[in-house]
């Protein structure tokens, strides 16, 4: 077994030091002048100590002395050599000997290692009543994993009151006052840094408690007015805040039958990168760092998901970007290979601009999309990329290599995290070097948006590896220090993100929103349609059946074509039967549609539907479709699906004049209720599909689809595939009353 790193003393020591350095950096953020110096110092250090974690500050004058246990707490004690500055040599008569004698002193320094909540709150001030600012930062950033807000506040206020009531010796009166001053300072920091802790809807109990406290002990103080002001803000939000909440996000305002102005590959790359960065930046600045803690993010359960809402929003945006890459590359199966490779190239160009903007989140999202199996496997398409583009792809992908615990991206983030420009590229990064060279020195400075996943993994692993409590249930505060190192980096980058100044382009939002999102199975199917797998599949696995679906073995086609665009269920009931999988695999053999996973909607594609569909559908309006119908399994020129656009129409005033449509995929054999369900899902509508009708918009009329039609065959492909989803008359009134309609951006 390897012993990691080094001796324990060195470890603890470095831990305390690193935390301190970070807290200092966080402070330095407020005075940007310091930043540059600090950073370059940091850089120098890291150059020397390649294999060490960043932010390491070497302080050879610290020495671990040992541990000290008192009731309810364990301290780590260090001896620190303090050097006093030699006073500027005056013409004094003192001898040199005397001075050098006083130059060094050894001081004992204690750090809380573990303790009860009471002890941890006490430690916010030192024994002399001084503010322990590093400790306060760590404590406030992490306390939620071991105590409630109200409990901590209670302890703080009680401590203040105890100090105020104490009969103190006149000699100690200064310390007591200092101590109380420090507690007030803590409250200030808390209110300023984590105002959300005090929101506690609807009545803000903690804030009320604090108000009562300040009224009694500190009337007219700065703290008192700060509390009043916070209360006013919260109640204003509560009363007026709802207004506009019903409004659609700007991105949802789509003019009727408006076709998007942007269309890959011919889009302005830099502009796209900037817009993606703008979206990321808004989410990143809103990110609440302590929601990333392992105890919150990776232990969240369903009903507590709002606890990590800001993290989830970031993750969703990341996925949304990846999905857009996958979708735009695949969604038109009949594209010429060279045109498809132009789309790859366009994404690479956007990615390149993201690198300049130091937006590592969308950059990684794009790279992930390009590396996702359905896109990555398109060898012929990739082969058409120019040499430069292929190189660029490799350089960008290298940033996110998983090798050596993602060392490349960690280093990069450290180097550029708070720098103004993307000024460093590796020696092997020819394309990126060229780019930076072309750009010269950029006129505007940029912030940085990190890929959050690295932090989330680190925090998850810290949470898994380090126990919450030590020795008889004392809270392990060293764990919190370790977590704070990560949180502090996030905070630091959030501060840096303010350097972005990017305008909003509503047209971009519209484009972003209009891109169809494919699920795994759809994407893979499309991909195989574009470039059939080379490995001739064997049977046994459903995947193989599915491949057959696209080439060869025609006899399967009529079955394979039961494909419905959403399916994910398989023996999810706990029937406890040992061979559930057997039944499942059998089912899969019959119904090869159930390959996808992760799709939240369900469908029940069944064999009887498929067998009857050949005759039951309405007569296709256009001969091309007929050729793909199961009745003519050998002619395979047309698509196996259509992409249709569905608008939701309601009588609600809010949506007046605003048409938003969502694209959905329509596979052959999908029946009206299923299509309605899919549309509802995309449009974020609740309720029973039977309560809705679906109609195709034709130039002179609307064609309402019969309740159980096979929509694929029923649509009129001579015209645009635009549809309107409506509540049935009777349902409509009810829905308005219940406010059932939710138009949310996802």
């Amino acid at each position, binding site marked *: 077994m390897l*012993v990691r790193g080094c*001796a324990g003393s060195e470890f603890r020591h470095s831990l305390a030091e690193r935390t301190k350095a970070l807290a200092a950096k966080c402070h330095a953020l407020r005075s940007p002048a310091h930043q540059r110096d600090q950073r370059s110092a940091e850089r120098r250090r890291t150059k020397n100590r390649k294999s060490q*974690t960043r932010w390491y500050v070497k302080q050879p004058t610290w020495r671990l002395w040992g541990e000290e246990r008192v009731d309810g707490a364990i301290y780590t004690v260090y001896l620190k050599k303090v050097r006093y500055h030699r006073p500027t040599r005056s013409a004094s008569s003192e001898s040199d000997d005397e001075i050098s004698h006083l130059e060094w002193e050894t001081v004992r320094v204690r750090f809380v290692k573990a303790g009860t909540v009471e002890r941890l709150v006490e430690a916010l001030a030192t024994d002399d009543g001084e503010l322990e600012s590093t400790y306060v930062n760590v404590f406030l950033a992490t306390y939620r994993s071991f105590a409630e807000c109200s409990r901590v506040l209670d302890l703080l206020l009680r401590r203040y009151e105890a100090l105020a009531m104490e009969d103190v010796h006149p000699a100690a009166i200064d310390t007591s006052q200092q101590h109380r001053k420090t507690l007030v300072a803590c409250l200030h920091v808390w209110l300023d840094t984590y105002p959300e802790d005090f929101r506690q809807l609807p009545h803000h109990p903690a804030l009320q408690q604090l108000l009562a406290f300040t009224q009694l002990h500190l009337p007219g103080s700065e703290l008192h007015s700060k509390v009043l002001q916070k209360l006013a803000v919260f109640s204003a939000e509560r009363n007026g805040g709802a207004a506009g909440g019903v409004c659609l996000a700007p991105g949802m305002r789509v003019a009727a039958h408006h076709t998007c102005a942007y269309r890959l590959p011919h889009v302005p790359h830099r502009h796209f990168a900037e817009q993606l960065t703008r979206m990321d930046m808004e989410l990143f600045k809103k990110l609440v760092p302590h929601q990333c803690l392992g105890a919150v993010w*990776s232990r969240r359960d369903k009903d507590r998901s709002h606890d990590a809402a800001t993290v989830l929003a970031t993750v969703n945006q990341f*996925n949304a970007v990846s999905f857009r890459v996958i979708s735009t590359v695949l969604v038109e199966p009949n594209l010429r290979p060279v045109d498809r490779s132009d789309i790859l190239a366009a994404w690479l160009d956007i990615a390149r601009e993201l690198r300049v903007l130091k937006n590592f989140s969308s950059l990684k999202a794009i790279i992930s999309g390009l590396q996702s199996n359905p896109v990555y496997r398109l060898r012929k398409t990739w082969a058409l990329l120019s040499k430069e583009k292929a190189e660029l792809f490799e350089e960008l992908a290298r940033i996110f290599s998983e090798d050596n615990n993602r060392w490349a991206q960690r280093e990069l983030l450290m180097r550029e995290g708070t720098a103004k420009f993307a000024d460093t590229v590796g020696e092997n990064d020819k394309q990126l070097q060229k780019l930076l060279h072309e750009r010269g020195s950029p006129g505007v400075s940029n912030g940085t948006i990190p890929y959050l996943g690295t932090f989330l993994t680190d925090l998850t692993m810290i949470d898994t590896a380090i126990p919450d409590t030590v020795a008889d249930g004392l809270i392990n505060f060293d764990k919190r220090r370790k977590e704070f190192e990560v949180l502090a980096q996030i905070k630091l980058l959030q501060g840096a993100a303010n350097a972005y100044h990017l305008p909003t382009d509503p047209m971009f939002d519209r484009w972003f929103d209009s891109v169809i999102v494919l699920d795994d199975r759809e994407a893979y199917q499309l991909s195989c349609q574009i470039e059939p797998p080379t490995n001739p599949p064997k049977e046994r696995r459903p995947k193989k059946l599915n491949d057959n679906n696209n080439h060869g073995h025609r006899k399967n086609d009529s079955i394979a074509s039961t494909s419905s665009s959403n399916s994910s269920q398989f023996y999810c009931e706990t029937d406890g039967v040992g061979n559930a999988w057997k039944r499942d695999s059998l089912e899969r053999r019959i119904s090869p549609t159930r390959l996808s996973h992760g799709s939240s909607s369900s469908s029940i594609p069944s064999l009887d539907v498929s067998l009857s569909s050949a005759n039951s559908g309405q007569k296709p309006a256009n001969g091309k479709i007929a050729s793909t119908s199961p009745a003519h399994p050998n002619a395979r020129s047309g698509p196996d699906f259509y992409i249709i656009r569905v608008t939701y129409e309601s009588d609600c005033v809010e949506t007046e004049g605003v048409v938003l449509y969502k694209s959905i995929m329509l596979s052959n054999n999908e029946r009206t209720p299923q299509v309605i369900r899919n549309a509802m899902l995309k449009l974020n509508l609740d309720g029973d599909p039977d309560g809705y009708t679906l109609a195709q918009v034709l130039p002179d009329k609307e064609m309402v689809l019969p309740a159980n039609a096979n929509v694929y065959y029923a649509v009129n492909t001579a015209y645009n595939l635009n549809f309107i989803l409506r509540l049935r008359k009777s349902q409509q009134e009810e829905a308005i009353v219940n406010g059932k309609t939710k138009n949310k951006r996802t």
Partner: protein
Amino acid sequence: MREYKIVVLGSGGVGKSALTVQFVQGIFVEKYDPTIEDSYRKQVEVDGQQCMLEILDTAGTEQFTAMRDLYMKNGQGFVLVYSITAQSTFNDLQDLREQILRVKDKDDVPMVLVGNKCDLEAERVVGKQQGANLANHFNCVFMETSAKAKISVNEVFYDLVRQINKKSPKEENKKRIKKPLTCQLL
């Protein structure tokens, strides 16, 4: 020394991180630092041969769905984990496996099916036979483990190494490997 990339997959909460930490760190958990270069590596001896295992835990990033393919592409061996106390985590594995085979474009990928939390016998809902049947269907090895009680954790990874060796006995993997960390004072 040959290097092995191993990916641990499964639903949230089944104990992926716990297994990884248990394997990589053993009892030295107190000194664990996930941010340093070697925190997911471990050198082990399997059948008289020194191997360097690099564990790719997806911990904390399970919901970055678009990245799963990449993990799978990079992995040489897979640990598919469910918890014996949650049926749904067992059911989820079929899809995961299919995704792996699709990404790898192979029929047979080194893989171990793991029923974790076997220390929680009283809360068991997935029977041992059920696990064995699924493994049989997957054509892979099955083990029940406990990251908490340290049962069979190393065996999972050793078995994967053996499988990888068997399937690609050649040492095609000539990647430069950092010298192993030893206890040294700075």
